[in-house]
């Protein structure tokens, strides 16, 4: 796979990766400064941020579905836990009475970790204050992840004993239970019931979600390439053989489930920050389906695929296909292009991918520098080969037709 014992090319690839990542971060940073929120290019920033967050969630789902073979559909529920765990503890005390307006005294919780650390380290205007603020955000995100992971651990004990489709439906069920639990009025003083949570601390540079998601995805990739990752893959490929080779099925499934949920929780917290408000109602099975479809588009079992899939998915639904809703797309104008049409087209494309291109963009392959160089090295030869290929295809078709004719004649 991606790992090569070959030392020199390995080193070169590492250097290349670092350069590419640094360039990417600089680019995001520059774009973030250059693009004004009012400009039409702001779509790019929206897609970049949301795509990055979805990439993290999709990769975490892929860890389960693609690398451990557990068809889990609980992702939206786990994101919900993460989002709430973050938001509830990040609303400044002075805003609590407005946010929790239906609850006496602004709810039960009266502190915000980011704001508290900001004050402790010098206040809103000081540099130290800014560091305190972000430290608070990061600590809360870790808390969100840990809480999600803890709940996933408990859910995993009964659920992971189930097989394929039963597991899918049970995790879907738990996600629904989680959702109704967070909407329960009895928990209102903490979760604000079915009302929106808002005015919580958030990042102000797009580079933050990119960095966080990047670190998380890097960890997942390293995990997949470790001995534990191999154990996960062995479970995916053949449970009985994996068990016969000494892999403790339950332990490893639980491990994969908990780690995946941790990152889903972190993703949920990022999503909350991205949206600036959070409410339990959109975290339905439909959201899980969307993430699953991203994983499928990218290729089940490919991290790079999930990342590419997320950006494509988000860019299409938030930006490129917007015209389909407004009556004009690529210069074509039509009356039937009314709001919602974009999603129909989108769904058709996705069905097409699922049916005719089920391996997705990447299949189970990963991006590698060797692969990229190889691609460009062989590109001229392949382009030169295209006419021949077409010819071959045509003659094959002709041959088919002819044999058919012969058969019919017989």
């Amino acid at each position: 796979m991606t790992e090569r014992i070959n030392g020199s090319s390995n080193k070169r690839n590492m250097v290349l990766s670092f350069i590419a990542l640094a360039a990417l971060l600089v680019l995001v940073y520059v774009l973030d400064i250059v693009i004004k929120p009012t400009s039409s290019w702001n779509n790019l920033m929206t897609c970049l941020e949301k795509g990055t967050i979805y990439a993290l969630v999709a990769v975490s789902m892929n860890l389960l579905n693609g690398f451990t073979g557990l068809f889990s559909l609980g992702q939206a529920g786990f994101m919900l836990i993460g989002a709430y765990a973050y938001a509830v503890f990040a609303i400044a005390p002075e805003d609590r009475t407005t946010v929790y307006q239906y609850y006496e005294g602004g709810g039960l919780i009266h502190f915000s970790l980011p704001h508290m650390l900001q004050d402790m380290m010098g206040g809103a205007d000081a540099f130290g204050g800014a560091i305190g603020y972000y430290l608070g955000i990061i600590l809360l995100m870790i808390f969100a992840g840990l809480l999600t992971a803890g709940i996933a651990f408990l859910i995993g004990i009964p659920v992971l004993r189930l097989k394929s489709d039963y597991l899918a439906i049970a995790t879907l069920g738990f996600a629904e239970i989680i959702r109704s639990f967070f909407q329960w009025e009895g928990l209102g003083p903490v979760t604000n019931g079915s009302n929106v949570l808002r005015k919580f601390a958030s990042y102000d540079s797009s580079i933050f979600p990119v960095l966080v998601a990047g670190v998380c995805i890097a960890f997942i990739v390293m995990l997949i390439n470790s001995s534990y990752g191999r154990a996960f893959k062995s479970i995916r490929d053949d449970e009985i053989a994996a068990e016969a080779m000494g892999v403790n099925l339950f332990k490893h499934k639980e491990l994969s489930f908990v780690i995946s949920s941790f990152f889903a929780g972190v993703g949920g917290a990022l999503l909350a920050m991205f949206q600036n408000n959070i409410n339990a109602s959109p975290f339905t099975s439909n959201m899980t389906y969307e993430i699953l479809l991203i994983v499928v588009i990218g290729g089940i079992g490919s991290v790079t695929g999930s990342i590419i899939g997320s950006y494509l998915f988000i860019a299409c639904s938030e930006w490129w296909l917007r015209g389909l809703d407004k009556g004009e797309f690529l210069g074509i104008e039509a009356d039937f292009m009314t709001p919602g049409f974009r999603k129909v087209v989108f769904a058709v494309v996705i069905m097409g991918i699922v049916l005719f291109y089920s391996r997705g963009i990447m299949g189970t392959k990963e991006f590698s520098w060797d692969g990229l160089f190889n691609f460009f090295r062989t590109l001229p030869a392949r382009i030169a080969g295209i006419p021949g290929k077409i010819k071959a295809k045509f003659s094959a078709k002709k041959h088919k037709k002819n044999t058919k004719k012969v058969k019919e004649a017989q």
Partner: protein
Amino acid sequence: MNKENVLRVSDITMQFGGVVAVNNLSLEVNKGEIIGLIGPNGAGKTTAFNVITGVYAPTNGMVELNGSVIAENHPQGKMKAQYKGENAGKYTGKTVLTPDKITKKGIARTFQNIRLFKGMTVLENVLVAMHMNMKAGVFGSALRFNAAEEAKMREEAMDLLRMFGLEGNKDDLATSLPYGKQRHLEIARALATKPQLLLLDEPAAGMNPQESDELMHLVGKIREQFDLSVLMIEHHMQVIMGICDRIYVLDYGALIAEGNPEEIQNNPRVIEAYLGVDD
């Protein structure tokens, strides 16, 4: 030879509903022995393997490895009324270890219908089998704090691949190997768990006489080099007779004969089971 007992199977009965797949089977494997388990198709050989490796919990009976119980059961619940075997009252305990625990205790196996990890490379297939003995935890392993341990694992895995002539295929997908090499890889993978007892389920199936001859020598070599015992199911009589110290013969789930190759070859009940009776 010093007869140190490795595996002892006592009075195993395996019943699925009303069907008795294995009936009151007892067998022993001593240290360093190669034991054959033969019988016509459907005689319950693979089921016996599945009981020994913990895939199925026996309906009645006991399995011990080096004197410690790895499986014990007696008819319970609904099975009490349905039970058709013998020795119903002999065992009282219930021990059911999962297959991974049994592998950890020292029994490794191969599968009759090759079960390699399809999406993984040849090297990775072997490395998986070493996972259970790894000391590092998830974080240590993911963050590469155990680089030395990982390197050692890879080295050992490569040694195993070399022994089976698979070193050139290490980065190929396991399923892209030709059939015979897949069988070899299954054995290499089983050996990577560092077993004391190796169970081979029809290792020579689908091989031509020359290949099976090579396999026979390989099994002998494995016994010497890894200091282990072997219990094998095989249909190629040439292989079985050529290599086994003792042979057990199963028919309709029950043991019908036991002895060294010569005794088995001349045993009228075995001949009857394989060829039928002349009327």
